[in-house]
């Protein structure tokens, strides 16, 4: 079991386990979000998804998102774990966990984390549906340099 806060993994993710990575005696609130593989998309019946990542870049970018969060909200710890490889309907593709002393800010921070991940982190999904397969299109505009 990993205690890494920012991780691209090939193994199934547990929400409880990721939440434990951010828990501490001073954290009175933990907000968790899970992204789940669903069975329909754009009118297509989805069979399964395959995720691919550029892990050497994606993990530091997840850490960067946590830094952006800490600059805006008083949160203690952030963990973001994304799974890659084939994932079946109902499985967890990504978990975000935010720990803070109080709940204020934690909900917004969690939403920011997943929105930002979808904008800038080099991960892609390919949908295998009944009748074909398609790479899912991301946002059109590239992020500014993160150096």
């Amino acid at each position, binding site marked *: 079991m990993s205690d890494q806060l920012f991780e691209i993994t090939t193994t199934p993710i547990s929400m409880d386990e990721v939440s434990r990575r951010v828990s501490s005696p001073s954290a009175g609130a933990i907000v968790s979000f899970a*992204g789940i593989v669903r069975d329909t998309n754009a009118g297509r019946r989805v069979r399964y998804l395959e*995720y*691919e*990542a*550029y892990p*050497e*870049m*994606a993990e*530091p970018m997840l850490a960067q998102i946590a830094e952006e969060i800490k600059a805006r909200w008083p949160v203690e710890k952030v963990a973001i774990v*994304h799974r890659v490889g084939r994932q079946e309907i109902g499985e967890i*593709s*990504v978990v975000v966990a935010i720990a803070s002393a109080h709940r204020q800010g934690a909900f917004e921070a969690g939403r920011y984390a*997943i929105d930002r*991940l*979808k*904008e*800038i*982190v*080099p*991960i*892609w*999904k*390919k949908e295998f549906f009944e009748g074909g397969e398609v*790479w*899912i*299109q*991301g*946002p*059109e505009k*590239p*992020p*500014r*340099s*993160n*150096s």
Partner: protein
Amino acid sequence: MARGKARFFASLREAVGRSEIEWVLADGATVETLMTHLRKTLPGLEEWAGRTWVAVNRHYAAPETVLQDCDEVALFPPVSGG
């Protein structure tokens, strides 16, 4: 001379039919120089013109970024994780 590696991901990897390639360019070459060079040798890249994001050494990079020896350049489509 500068030499390095270019890596391809997701739909771009499928379009060019390989996950990486070595490059050798004159000193002062930029990301744009490399892209022009790669489009000649890897025709599959052309259809992704305008929808290719570029990172140099794991940081997003602009076309005018000058490449250094041993740089790792990654080319990929707009991200779609989550």
